[in-house]
């Protein structure tokens, strides 16, 4: 381990897991809900649409249902503040570990351009799926499992199960 590049050294995963669990516990203790990520993006999309196309928003079902169940604007959204914190916390950890660098990370078998194209496609699918599935890996799977939600376990199984099932076919992207 002495020779390992400092930027490749990570926290022991079990220690990281316990710490992440404590963060999730803190979220539940404070707000009565777990963590989340896709909810912040939904809030950003809705707020943007409210600004650029208010009439469209007023007559479109998704946005009216959203406004009906969420009060307070973008800056009063718990998940938005939490995700801003994620950017700060991630940056701090990266700075300490010497990992701050503009970079497109990809397998040596593919180009940066190909990596970016697949990242966009993956993002579109994940964004869509997180809305259909009522939350992503954080909000539905992890937070759901901590409160023993059946839906949380189902989301977890299908997110990881599908990724495993498709992994062989897209192996060139990664290995």
């Amino acid at each position, binding site marked *: 381990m002495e020779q390992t590049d400092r930027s490749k050294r990570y926290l022991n995963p079990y220690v990281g*897991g316990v710490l*992440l669990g404590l963060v999730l516990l803190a979220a539940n203790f404070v707000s009565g809900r777990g963590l989340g990520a896709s909810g912040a993006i939904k809030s950003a999309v809705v707020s943007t649409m409210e600004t650029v196309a208010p009439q469209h928003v007023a007559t479109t079902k998704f946005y009216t249902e959203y406004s009906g169940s969420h009060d307070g604007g973008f800056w009063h959204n718990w998940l938005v*503040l939490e995700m801003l914190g994620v950017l700060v916390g*991630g940056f701090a*950890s990266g700075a300490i570990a010497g990992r701050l660098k503009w970079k497109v990370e990809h397998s040596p078998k593919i180009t940066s351009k190909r990596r970016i194209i697949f990242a966009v496609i993956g993002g579109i699918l*994940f*964004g869509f799926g*997180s809305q259909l599935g009522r939350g992503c890996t954080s909000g539905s799977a992890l937070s759901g499992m901590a409160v023993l939600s059946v839906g949380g376990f189902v989301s977890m199984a299908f997110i990881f199960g599908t990724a*495993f099932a498709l992994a062989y076919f897209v192996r060139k992207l990664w290995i």
Partner: protein
Amino acid sequence: MGPLIVNEIIPEGLNLFLAFVIGIGFGFVLESSGFSSSRKLAGMFYGYDTTVLKVFFTAAITAMLGLLFFSLFGWIDLSLVYINPTFMTSAIVGGAIMGAGFILGGYCPGTSFCALSIGKLDALAFIGGLFIGVFIFAEGYPLWETMYKANNMGAPTMNTILGVSRGVFAFLLIIVALAMFVVGEWSEKKFPRDEY
């Protein structure tokens, strides 16, 4: 006493400030554990790096046990803690679509923000995709609203459908997780990769 905000122990401003602080902890732990690297995350699905499995399940168990003990000590009222509702159809279909996004894009939403924070441009592209995906869902909502709301089962918990107590289910999940950790450690030796 907990949850603090549901019991109106703290004002809204402090709640939002704590959301920011909790987010800092969330981002710091994700980054320190290596979740800012898509090739490390993808390693889960090829067996060469099972950090995701270890961190994810250790975190779920820690939070689950924490909630159980907090409840036992009377520090939190579990009946006021949000339990994610189960809409079986959308959980399955949404989960499968997210899984496809994960293996193609290399991130999930939380980890993409974490990766962006240290300068990963592929994460920025993924986040751009997330916005497009959410926008498509919003605009086409009437097309999939039926599927979205199908098979509403309320908010059942695993222990109730299995007919055991919370504690017994927690114990079983810990056993399962330990077994998976053994498989994970074996897998990393079986499918090693030096550099990624």
